[in-house]
């Protein structure tokens, strides 16, 4: 049976990992390539890199990171952030990523999903969704709305509708980020994750709110997520991927062994 995936997420700015990440002595804490390798060795099932560099003229730096990561880790990895065109997708895939993640670009221009899927296959296209809880209304019947720009801009688009629409357009996977839970370390948004994951036929990666292994158990079990993104709980050395997996495994969640 398919294992649930644990996916560390690295934010990269100008070719360096951001946030004061605390690693063991032998790791360059700012080098995304070394961090990728570190998590690969720890047993991560996949790795996500987000290029949070604002300007597109920095893209060659990110592509260089992707190339170097591809030389040292032999698990799937995806790259997101600032991907707007087929050309952007092609560059990242040719540099060695398995998947590309589109978020606000797809909200503004849904066509990019279908064109990307047609050119590179559905399995390559991950839809990133930033979602906020709002009052139920005629435009937002699920009570969850799509937002962009880090949650500052409400799009008047229902999250459940958008998830189904993205699947129809050819997205191969959804990375579902709750803006409300993000950064709280109080756990994932279970209700939202369950709502989306049971409504679509493609895998859903839960994101935002992870602070301890129990949160992953909750979202993978009750939240019906297929995978869970982790960031600060592993970046700060609070938990290793192995510790998280041991906990999940002891509690009946099928995860991949480390060999």
């Amino acid at each position, binding site marked *: *049976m*398919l*294992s649930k*995936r644990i996916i560390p997420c690295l934010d990269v700015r100008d070719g360096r990992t951001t946030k004061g990440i605390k690693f063991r002595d032998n790791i360059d804490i700012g080098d995304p390539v070394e961090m990728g390798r570190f998590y*690969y060795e720890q047993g991560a*099932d996949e790795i996500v890199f987000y290029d949070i560099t604002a300007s597109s003229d920095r893209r060659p730096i990110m592509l260089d990171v992707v190339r170097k990561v*591809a*030389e*040292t880790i*032999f*698990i*799937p990895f995806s790259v997101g952030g600032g991907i707007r065109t087929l050309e952007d997708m092609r560059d990242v*895939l*040719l540099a*060695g990523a*398995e998947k590309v993640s589109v978020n606000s670009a797809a909200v503004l221009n849904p066509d990019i999903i279908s064109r990307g899927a047609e050119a*590179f*296959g*559905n*399995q390559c296209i991950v839809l990133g969704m930033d979602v906020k809880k709002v009052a139920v209304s005629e435009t937002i019947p699920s009570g969850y709305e799509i937002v962009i720009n880090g949650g500052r801009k409400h799009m008047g688009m229902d999250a459940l509708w958008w998830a189904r629409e993205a699947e129809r357009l050819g997205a*191969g*996977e959804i990375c579902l980020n709750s803006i409300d839970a993000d950064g709280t370390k109080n756990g994932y948004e279970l209700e939202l994750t369950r709502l989306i994951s*049971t409504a679509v*036929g*493609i*895998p859903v990666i839960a994101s935002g709110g992870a602070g301890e292994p129990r949160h992953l158990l909750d979202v993978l079990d009750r939240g*019906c997520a*297929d*995978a869970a993104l982790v960031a600060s709980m592993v970046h700060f050395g609070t938990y290793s991927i192995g510790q998280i997996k041991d906990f999940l495994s002891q509690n009946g969640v099928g995860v*991949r*062994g480390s*060999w």
Partner: protein
Amino acid sequence: MIAILDYKAGNLTSVMRALDYLGFSCRITNSAEEIRRAERIVFPGVGAAGKSMESLRQLGLDELLRELFSSGVPILGICVGLQVLFDLSEENNTGCLGILPGQVIKFPEKMVSQRGDLLKIPHMGWNKVDFVKNHPVTGDIPKGSEFYFVHSYYPEPAGQDLTIGTTEYGITFTSAVACKNLVAVQFHPEKSGKPGLKLLDNFCRWSGVA
């Protein structure tokens, strides 16, 4: 030199990087001359069976693959590179290479897990491969190792002789086959961490005799 067959089938560089990392020299090529000279062949693949067969025919690689299989050179098929070895694929109802007897069919709809959740298609992620027969290419891989899969179709060989590995996803399906100098896997060893690298390393040292 190891030849990685180039027929526009997705990310060939990931196979090359894994072989480079293991220290084997390889080339991505569609030159018949170069392929014939290679000491072993990797036949990768991502995408649809129909398009893959079309490219293979256009490049003349369909005939070449049959010739290579008869020549005894070790061949490793990966993902769609496994699927098109069979007679027929349900995907776009594609006539394939017919090197191995059998067909490739789609996972049934509405499969459910033991606890009743609907199983998603494609089968994407890490899953166990149960190596049901010993083979040099799967030697020294710990029992219960998991590999990375991305596919909606699976092979159904005619007869059980070919199957060396099986995987469970709603049903039990063949995930690895072997026949003479040929081994083929439905998963992506180049993206399957240590067990995947071990399988590739074994293949690169294999004489071609099972």
